[in-house]
Structure formats: C-alpha cells, structure tokens
C-alpha cells in the first residue's frame, strides 16, 4: 500500500494546482534535500567512527543494561510507529474523502462495535495505533471512538489472537477472556467518554490545533507535500514520546526486581495486581506478550494472566508517553484507572469464578 503511493502521485501531479512539486523543483527544496542528506551522512559517520566494543566505555553493568533495554524498546517500536504514521498519512491524504468513516454505521454503539474490529484489518502493534488514531480523529472520528479503537485494536488483532492461541490454546478460557474482555472494556470506555459534554477538552491543545488545521487542508499544496508535512508533524509528536517512554521503560526494568512481582503470582488476589503492574512496567508489544507471560505460566494464576493480557496492550509506560501527545494528563489518569479497574475485575472473576 505504502510503496505504491509515490507512483500514483506522480501521475496525478501535473493535473493539480500550484504548490511545489517534483516538476518545479525549487532551489529551496534542493537545499532542504542537501541538509537532510548531510544529516544522514553525519549520523552515519558518527555511528561508524564511534567505539565498537563495550569495553571501550567502562560503564557499570546496570547502566549498560539500562541503555540496552531502552534501545531495544526503540528499535522494536520504531518500525511500528513509522507504519502507523504511514497509515495515518494514507487515511488523511490519499484515501478518498470520508471513504473509511462514511461507511460506518450511524448509531454510536454500532459505530464503536465496528471500530473495535478495525484492528482485524490493520495488524499494527499498539504503538503504531496512536498515530493512526490521531489521523482518524483529524478526519472526523470522535474522541470516544478513537479510544475504543486504540484499546480494542491491539487485542482484536489477528496476530495477537494467533499468538495467544499458540501460547495458551483455544479451550482454557484465557484466549476467550482476553478477546471478549478487551472488546468489552474498549466499548465501555467509548460509551462512557461518548457521554462527555465537551469531548474537545479531553485532547491536548496542541492536538486540537492539528485537528482544526486538518479540517481546512490547504488544497493548493500537492499530496506529496501534504504527506511530507504530516510526516514531519507526526514524528514531531511521536518521536520524543517514544524516546522518553523507552527511557522510562528501561529505567524501571533496571530498578524494579522482577522476582518480587513473580513471587506474588500464585496468590489469587495478588497475582492479578502484580501482573498488571508487570504489564505496565515491561511495556511489551501485544503481538508477543502471550509468549512473554507464558514463560511464567506455571507459577501464575490464570486470572493474573488474563489481567496482564488485557491491561498491558491498553496501558503501559510507553503507551502513556505516546498517548500523552493526544490526550490530556487528566484524561489519561482517568483512562488508566478505569481500564485498570476493569482488568482487575476481569482477572479476579477468572480466578474466583472457577
């Protein structure tokens, strides 16, 4: 999908209005391109010339591991964030106006139900969903609906379902509890925030500004130019959040001993809370979290595992940093508490219900 875009655009460009485009390549564009290439060359040179053995810098082990873990989060999430940005650009700039949103049902309840299944079509990890959700809101999705999408998509996602099934099998209730529980919580959150009298207040001022701009797109600018603008705008929002989130995730991993959390795992009550805390701390992708938690499967109560698998994809350190680009801190606090409460109830129901 993404690879084909520039080709389509080149054909359309000559028929469109003014604006800088590849045909009339202004000197300033050339200068910009040179700056970009120079930066790439500079970064590559720094990377190649930097010392290549860990021993060269006598860092203590904990500091080394903090760096390794943070870098690992960045390297792992970066392609998904880029994919999310590319999809977001596709939805906002390249899809015909309203093609996606106009086909949704009218009733808010049904709309949210359909939106929570959108993840089936877009198997992106949760970090990639944030830029996509931003793009959808800019296109007219309500704030509450965007929350439903954000929380449902990483769980109701073919890759996640397959890996969860591989890890835990189809018939012991963990998969069903995860999928149905995630679906229910996402729609509950959407329903609650759908009743908010002034949904705009849930968003950061900066993102509101972005949305008003998106409502009046400068038609004069070509599609490639608008795509480039959106790329610069979305990376400006996402990248600092991703890097800061990765740093926090790395720091917590080094600071919090996992053994403490694991030790609590066999108690019906504490297993739920400890595993939710673990999910918050490890900030792992929903596509593979089932394998991760399976590694503790023998020691943990199933309710704790379900709470981990439902809470983790929705709320964790990295996701909060990414979502902070869009929602106010107060909203995120409410959301975290609401989702945590629901996940805890679900986990306890699984533990005590059997």
């Amino acid at each position: 999908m993404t690879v084909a875009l520039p080709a389509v655009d080149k054909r359309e460009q000559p028929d469109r209005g003014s604006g800088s485009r590849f045909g009339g390549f202004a000197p300033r564009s050339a200068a910009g391109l040179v700056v970009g290439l120079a930066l790439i060359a500079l970064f590559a040179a720094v990377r190649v010339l930097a010392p290549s053995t860990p021993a060269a810098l006598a860092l203590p082990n904990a500091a080394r591991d903090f760096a390794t873990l943070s870098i690992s989060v960045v390297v792992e999430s970066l392609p998904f964030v880029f994919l999310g940005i590319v999809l977001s650009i596709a939805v906002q700039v390249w899809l015909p106006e309203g093609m996606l949103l106009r086909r949704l049902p009218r009733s808010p309840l049904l709309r949210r139900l359909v939106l929570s299944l959108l993840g089936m079509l877009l198997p992106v990890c949760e970090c990639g969903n944030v830029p996509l959700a931003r793009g959808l809101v800019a296109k007219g999705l309500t704030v509450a609906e965007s929350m439903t999408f954000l929380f449902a998509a990483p769980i109701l996602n073919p890759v996640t379902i397959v890996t969860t099934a591989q890890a835990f099998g189809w018939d012991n209730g963990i998969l069903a509890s995860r999928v149905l529980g995630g679906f229910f919580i996402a729609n509950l959150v959407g329903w609650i925030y759908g009743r908010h009298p002034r949904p705009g207040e849930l968003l950061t001022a900066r993102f509101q500004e972005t949305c008003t701009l998106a409502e009046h797109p400068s038609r004069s600018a070509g599609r490639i130019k608008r795509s480039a603008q959106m790329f610069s705008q979305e990376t400006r929002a996402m990248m600092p959040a991703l890097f800061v989130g990765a740093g926090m995730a790395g720091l917590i991993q080094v600071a919090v001993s996992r053994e403490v959390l694991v030790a609590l795992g066999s108690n019906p009550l504490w297993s739920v809370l400890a595993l939710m805390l673990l999910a918050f701390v490890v900030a792992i992708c929903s596509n593979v979290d089932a394998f991760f938690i399976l590694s503790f499967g023998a020691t943990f109560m199933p309710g704790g595992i379900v709470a981990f698998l439902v809470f983790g994809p929705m709320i964790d350190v990295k996701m909060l940093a990414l979502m902070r680009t869009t929602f106010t801190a107060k909203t995120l606090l409410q959301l975290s508490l609401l989702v945590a409460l629901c996940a805890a109830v679900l986990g306890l129901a699984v533990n005590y219900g059997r």
Partner: protein
Amino acid sequence: MVVRRLVGRWQGVVLSLIGLVATIWLGLTGQLALYIHPRYFVFTVVMAVIAGVLALVSFALVPSTHDGHGHGHEPASRWGWLLPAGSVLTIAAAVGALLILPPSTLTTSTVAQRDLNGSASALTLKAPALTSKADYSAFTVRDWASLLRSGAGQDFFADKTATVTGFISADKTDRDVFFVTRFVVACCAVDAQPIGVPVYHPGWQNEYKTDSWVTVTSGFRANPNAASRETIVLVPDSIKPTTQPEQPYVY
C-alpha cells in the same frame, strides 16, 4: 528564538533519522540481534528505509521558516525555554544511546533482576525428546537447562557429556557454583529470560570474571555440596574462555 523554532520544527524528523540510521547500521553490521528477534529484521529495515525516504521528502518540501499555517508561535512564558531544552536533551540522549554507545548485550545485572531458570516456557517449549538415540553433542544450554529442570534423574545424566557455551553468572547461594548463562528472547531484549546450566568449580571467582564467555565440556555429577539448590552440576574437565558469539541470545 531561532533555535526554538528549528528544534520545534525538526526534532521529530531528526530523531527519526537518528533512529533509522542506527537501525540500518545495526542491520548492516549484523547486530540487530542484540535488540530484537530475527523475525523482525526485514520488517524493521524496510520500515527504516521507507521512513528515511519520507524524512528526506520532508526536508525538501516542508518550508523551514514557517509552515504556512501560523502555528508554532507559542506564547513566550517564563518556562518557555523548558520545552526546547527538553527537546535538545532528548536528541542528545538519542545520539548518545543510538549512535555513540557501542551495541551491547544484556549483562549479569539483568540476570540478577530476572529469576534465572525461573521461566517455564523458555525452558520447556523446546525441551528435547528424551530418546536414547538423541545426539547429545548438539544440545545447547537451553536443552540441558530444560532437561535439568524437567527433573530427569541422576541415572539419566550419568553417562552424558555436555558442551555448552555462555557467559558466567554467579549462583546466588552456592559460592562454588556458577552458571553458564544465555538469554532466551521472544521478541526483544526487554523480554529476555536468563537460563543456565550449573557448573561446580570451587574458586572459579579467582579464574574467571562474571559476564565473560566460556565453553564448558564435562559430564554431570551430583553436587558435592548437598545443601545446594542445584543437585546435578557439571564438574568440568575443561573450561575454555571464548568470545561472545554472533547470536548471543537463543530463541
């Protein structure tokens, strides 16, 4: 003011460039495996290249002075410098971590954080079939650790010889025992689980450093120290120091 505007406008693209240059370099030098599972290699590098093209197009086409929409003019306030300062700090940290710091595996510090051999699936998922015909010479740290955990008795291990490679981490309780350790990775280094095979070698602290890589060849014996948690251990004939292998993690 100029700095603030430049930083505000370009920090996202610059951070992307730092990330993707580092990713592609790691890919080219075969070091991506230090951070992520090999199944993501292609996807990661392809997305980095696509993002690189988009970033270059942004440099070429997005006006650098103002963006034509009139935002980016935040009201000047007393704390207004905080935001650009934070951005510069983020960029500096990204350059330091991704471009200057030499790539590195996880160390024993993380082994201590995460229960060694505490993870069930890291050990049982690939537990080898216990047939008499099995080729034990090809068994890895993971295979032996799984067998030890599965509770196979001393009789089973009596005539087996293991050759395992890993880094040294200390046993928490038994001073005479160290582990030949590897990390099992499911997705990325964040989920790495340490596994290891216990080696009985009193005074190993004087000969080897933790975190150094060794190859141990030996048969299994009962641990002379009956109080130890590890009842069956390797009592090595030879411990050869070695270098970190190409793929330090196991999958």
